[in-house]
C-alpha cells in the first residue's frame, strides 16, 4: 500500500502552468527518483507535495488522506519533510540549533541529535558553527539532518548532489540506505541521472511538466531515458 500518491496534479506559477497532470505513488521505505531537464517541473512537484505551492487541480493523498488543503507546517506534523532546493539553512543559527529547530514538531522516532551525529560525523565536528559559515557539503548534510529531526515518514529531497564535490555526494547517498532502513520513503529529485538510477528502486522521467517515462530504475536504459529526457528521438542524432 502506498504512503503517498499524487494523481493528475496540475500546478501554476501565476499564469504559467508548470505541471500538466502528474501521477505517481511511493511505498513505505522505498526510494523513488524523479529526473528530468531544467524546468521539467521536478522541484515544482516536490513543492506541491510539501505544501509550498497549491495544486490547481488533482489530488495529493498521503496515508490514505487527501491533504491538498494542508499547509506545509501541518504536513510536517503528519510526517512529510522537504529538503528544499538551495538547502535554506537558518544562517544565524548554529548547526546544533538548526537541528533542534528541525525537531519543532516533536514527532517521535529514530532520529535525534545523537543518531544524527552518528549518521553525519562531519556535522558533529561543526556542531557550534553558524549556518552562514558552513560549506556546501555541510549545508546539504545539515539540511537532510534538519528534515530527519522531524522523523518523517516521507522525505522529499531536492537536488541532493547539486554543487557538491563527488566525495560528499557519495557520503550523502550512502546515508540514504540508513534513512530508508527506518521505514522512511524517499522521493528524490536529481539532475545526475546515473546517481538517481543507482539510488532508487523506481524512477519517473519528467519533460515539460509531464511524466514521459516511468518504471523500475533497473529496467530503464540510458538511451531510452535520453529520448524521454529531451523529447523523442534525441538520442538518434547524439553519440
Amino acid at each position, binding site marked *: 500500500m502506498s504512503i503517498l500518491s499524487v494523481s493528475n496534479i496540475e500546478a501554476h506559477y501565476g499564469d504559467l502552468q508548470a505541471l500538466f497532470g502528474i501521477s505517481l505513488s511511493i511505498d513505505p521505505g522505498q526510494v523513488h527518483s524523479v529526473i528530468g531537464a531544467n524546468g521539467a517541473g521536478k522541484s515544482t512537484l516536490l513543492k506541491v507535495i510539501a505544501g509550498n505551492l497549491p495544486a490547481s487541480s488533482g489530488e495529493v493523498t498521503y496515508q490514505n488522506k487527501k491533504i491538498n488543503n494542508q499547509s*506545509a507546517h501541518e504536513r*510536517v506534523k503528519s510526517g512529510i519533510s522537504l529538503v528544499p532546493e538551495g538547502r*535554506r539553512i*537558518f*544562517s*544565524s*543559527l548554529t548547526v546544533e540549533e538548526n537541528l533542534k*529547530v528541525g525537531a*519543532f514538531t516533536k514527532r517521535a522516532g529514530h532520529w535525534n541529535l545523537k543518531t544524527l551525529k552518528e549518521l553525519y560525523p562531519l556535522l558533529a565536528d561543526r556542531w557550534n558553527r553558524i549556518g552562514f559559515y558552513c560549506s556546501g557539503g555541510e549545508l546539504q548534510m545539515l539540511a537532510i539532518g534538519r528534515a530527519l529531526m522531524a522523523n518523517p515518514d516521507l522525505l522529499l529531497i531536492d537536488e541532493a548532489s547539486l554543487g557538491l564535490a563527488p566525495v560528499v555526494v557519495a557520503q550523502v547517498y550512502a546515508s540514504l540506505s540508513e534513512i530508508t532502513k527506518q521505514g522512511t520513503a524517499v522521493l528524490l529529485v536529481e539532475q545526475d541521472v546515473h546517481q538517481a538510477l543507482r539510488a532508487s528502486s523506481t524512477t519517473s522521467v519528467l519533460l515539460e511538466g509531464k511524466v514521459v517515462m516511468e518504471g523500475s530504475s533497473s529496467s530503464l536504459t540510458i538511451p531510452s531515458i535520453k529520448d524521454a529526457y529531451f523529447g523523442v528521438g534525441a538520442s538518434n542524432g547524439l553519440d
Partner: protein
Amino acid sequence: MVWTNAIVQGLLTGGLYALLASGLSLIFGVMRIVNLAHGDFSILAAYAVISVAMHTNLIGGIVLVLPVMALLGYFLQRTLLNKSLAMGVLSPLLITFAFSIIIQNVLLQVYTANNKSILTGRFSSESIKISKDLQIGLLPLVTFLAGVIVTVCLHYFLNHSQLGRALRATSDDPMAADLVGINNRHIYGIATAIGLFSAGIGGVLFGMRTQFAPSFGPIALVFAFEAVIIGGLGSLWGTLLGGVVLGIAQGIGSQIQPAYGILAGHIVFIAVLVLRPQGLLPKQMGAQK
C-alpha cells in the same frame, strides 16, 4: 562630581529607553515590521494601569495590564498585521500608523489631554546615597534593572528555548521555517505579544517617572528608535547599550543646559548614523537579508 551625577542619571534613564526599544527591535527583527504605534502602546499601558489601579492597587494594575498587552499584541498580529504582511512593506507601516492615531484619540477621549502620572507614593522619591554628591533614586534604579532583566530574559528565551529558536529561524527564512513545521503566523503573533508586553513595562515605568499625556507616544517611539539604531539593528545587547548611550547623552546635555538634553541625544544618534551606520554592537555575520 556634577558630571558623574549626570552620567549616572543618564545611564539609569537608558534602561527605560532600552525597555521601550527592545520590543520594537524584536518585532522588526522577526517580521521586518516597523511598529509606528510602539510608543502609543506604551502610553496605553500606562493609562490602563492607572485605571485598573483605581479599583485594585498598583501591583494589581501592573499584573493585570501587562498580560492583556501581550494578548492584544497576539490578537492584532493574527488578525490585521499578518494579513497586511502579505501586501508588501507599506501596508504594515500604514496599519501601525493607524493604530497610533486611534490609540492617541481614544486616550484623548477617555482621559482628556491633561497630564497624568502613575502614583507610587514614597517609592518615587526614595533614594540611595552613594556619596555626598551622588544619590541614586530607587525608581530610576528599578527602571534600569528592569531594562537589564528584560534584555537578559529575552536573550535567554531567544537562544535557549525551542520557541525562541523558532522565532530566530523564522526571522532568517520564513519559508524554510514553514518546512520544519513552524506556523509563521503563530510565531509572528508571539513576537508581537512579547513586543507589546515589554512596551507595556516601559510605559508603566515611564508613567511612574514622569507625567504623560495621550500625545506622548510618538516621542517615546523616537527615543526607542534612536536606541535601536545607536545599538545596532537586530542586536538585543546593542539595544540596551543604545538606550544607555542615549540616556547618558541626554544627561550630559541637560547638565550643560537643561534645554539641551533631548537635543544632545539626537546629535549622538545622528553622529552614530553617519560614523557607524551599523550601530555600536551590530548583529554578527551576514544573516540579514
